[in-house]
């Protein structure tokens, strides 16, 4: 009879702008975005040339390996696991490339294909041990790290690998190769293009039905299993994504570093990747957090380096500040309650 009346209830369902903004900055994405903007602002104020578009693209280029690792780690963390083997995967893959190529351009793509296959195999083994043998992923990937590093050292003799990367191989990691003379932006490197493609693919994947099953499995494996989700295969696939992205990150990182490969190339990167993802407000233990925020976390972590250079702070202090930022950011997110899983249906934040 009468036209629908907008009741006060319906109005309240959509909170006003200020309230939404407040809520956004209490969420993981908001915190890390604010942090990134502050860090960038300080860098650009103290050195305006750092804010030029082409310089920013160059920074993005240098951040690509960490960004790719963070995307891979996101898939593993959202399903409730860890991947501590990614640093070792990078070391192993770089050593393989340098040894097999030995500075010869021909066969570069064959070697890259071989590396991607090896990455897939490592991911499948990690995933199968975690999902089928029920070994905690912390232990599985830690042992995988020991095995890969040990085997690589055994094979190459340790230190700096004999042999070198080919120029063709290094094209993917160096900033000067790519789409040249783009207006304002300078050269958009292959690495940046690869990152953009992978970021889009990852975003599509996490929004697909696979992604929803992944998040559900991370939130509550048992419940997801009872609901008919393939909890075993999604976990194995998550580890495969992480290992393959680590391989690609390794190709870019090794190419950008130098034509020789030092076996310390990947050490500690697994913790950097996990730190980046958690800085983005993704819940360790699975089931909550956004892919976009994980990438913002990686960028934030990367820009701490330039921030220190601009402010003239000694590099020795960097770990301490990084540690404090990490703890404070995660504690802030936990305080606002956004990182806590909701206990029951329909229970809203206060």
């Amino acid at each position, binding site marked *: 009879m009468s036209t629908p009346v907008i009741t006060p209830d319906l109005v309240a369902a959509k909170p006003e702008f200020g309230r939404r903004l407040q809520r956004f900055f209490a969420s993981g994405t908001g915190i890390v975005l604010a942090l990134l903007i502050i860090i960038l602002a300080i860098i650009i104020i103290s050195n305006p040339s750092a804010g030029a578009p082409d310089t920013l693209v160059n920074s993005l280029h240098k951040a690509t390996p960490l960004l790719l690792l963070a995307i891979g780690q996101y898939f593993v963390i959202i399903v409730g696991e860890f991947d501590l083997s990614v640093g070792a995967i990078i070391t192993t893959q770089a050593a393989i490339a340098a040894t097999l190529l030995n500075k010869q351009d021909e066969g570069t793509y064959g070697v890259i294909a071989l590396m991607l296959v090896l990455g897939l195999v490592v991911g499948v083994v990690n995933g199968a041990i975690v999902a089928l043998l029920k070994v905690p992923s912390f*232990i599985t990937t830690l042992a995988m790290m020991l095995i890969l590093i040990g085997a690589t050292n055994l094979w190459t003799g340790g230190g700096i690998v004999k042999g070198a990367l080919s120029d063709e191989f290094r094209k993917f990691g160096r900033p000067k190769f790519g789409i040249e003379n783009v207006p304002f932006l300078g050269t958009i490197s292959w690495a940046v293009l690869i990152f953009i493609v992978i970021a889009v693919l990852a975003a599509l994947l996490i929004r697909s039905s696979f992604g929803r099953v992944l998040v559900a499995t991370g939130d509550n494996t048992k419940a997801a299993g009872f609901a008919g989700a393939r909890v075993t295969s999604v976990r194995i696939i998550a580890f495969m994504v992480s290992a393959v992205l680590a391989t690609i990150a390794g190709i870019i990182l090794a190419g950008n570093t130098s034509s020789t490969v030092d076996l310390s190339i990947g050490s500690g990167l697994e913790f950097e990747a996990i730190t980046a993802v958690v800085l983005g407000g993704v819940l*360790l233990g699975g089931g909550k957090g956004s892919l976009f925020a994980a990438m913002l976390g990686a960028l934030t972590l990367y820009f701490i380096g330039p921030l220190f250079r601009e402010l003239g702070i000694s590099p020795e202090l960097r770990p301490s500040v990084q540690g*404090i930022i990490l703890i404070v950011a995660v504690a802030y997110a936990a305080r606002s309650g956004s990182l806590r899983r909701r206990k029951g249906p329909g229970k809203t934040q206060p």
Partner: protein
Amino acid sequence: MSGADTFGTKFRLSTTQVVALALVALIIVATILYAARGQNFFSTNNLADLLTRSSLLGFVAIGQTMVILGRSLDLSVGYVVALSSLVAATVMNGLEGRVGLGIAAALAVAAFIGLLNGLIITILRVNPFIATVGMGLILKGFIDITYAAQEGKVPQGFSRGFGYTRIGPLPISTLTMLIIGVIAMVVLTKTRFGAHLFAVGGSDDVARLSGIRTNRTLIWAHVMCSVAAGVAGLLIAARFGLGSAQVYNTGYDLDSVAAVVLGGTLLMGGRGSVGGTVAGVMILAVLESAFNVLDVNPFLKNVIRGAIIIVAVAIYAQRQIDPLSRRSRFTPDGRRRATDFPEAVGALSPGGAK
């Protein structure tokens, strides 16, 4: 009811017993390997070397067991070991009269770090992995800025006394490790704190709803873990004669977690034992001796170690999934098992009622 008892009462070993058996088996294998090379595994020198090596990791791993039992984790222990060795060596500064002060200062610093870890994890509700990795980074920066790579001097008396004295083949440091292990075992099994820690590790929510002060329990576990790492730092200082910052690169954090898990403690908390951890540490040490006598390439050692850790934990995991590891309360035909409730069976089964 005939035949119903075949699996319920089947004799089963606890995980700690399995670890102990694996250790004994490994020692037998190592003895044979040594004998085949014309050497004696039980020679005083070999045993002393093996036990000293295991006592270092032992201190850290015993502490790590406490936090892992409470479903937490401490990845800052490597930095605590380094810092405590530096604090002890710089405070002692070569003076015999300041040994006590140095030990107290090192352990106090360690306890303070543990307290901070505990507070960050419980009050600020930061995930233990992140909290302790963050704390490790903070300590790394602090150590690099404050100290040189090697600093301070430990007086001869302390160095000899704690680092090199031994009773027969048993070094004082290992004896200290075993005493701390026994104390930890008693604390875990006989005290209220121990019971609370197991409860918190099993389920934090259930423990809190049962009236346990879960935060206080976890904070204490973290303080104990850091102090144990501090004792390892004292041993480093005693062995080297000075404080060493490089120790944090040795990987005590991940090694200690591996030793704890190898000892059969569940990474998810609530189940495990210090005895298992000590056996796990010994397994790693005996393995190292066996590698040495076989002249195994140092890099191959890591490969084998990694494989052994995965296999061991996979076996423990299977035991927990194994339906035989739980006592089933019902027989296959749906009746209650006699061994659990004899009086109930008597009342329910036809003809059994009086």
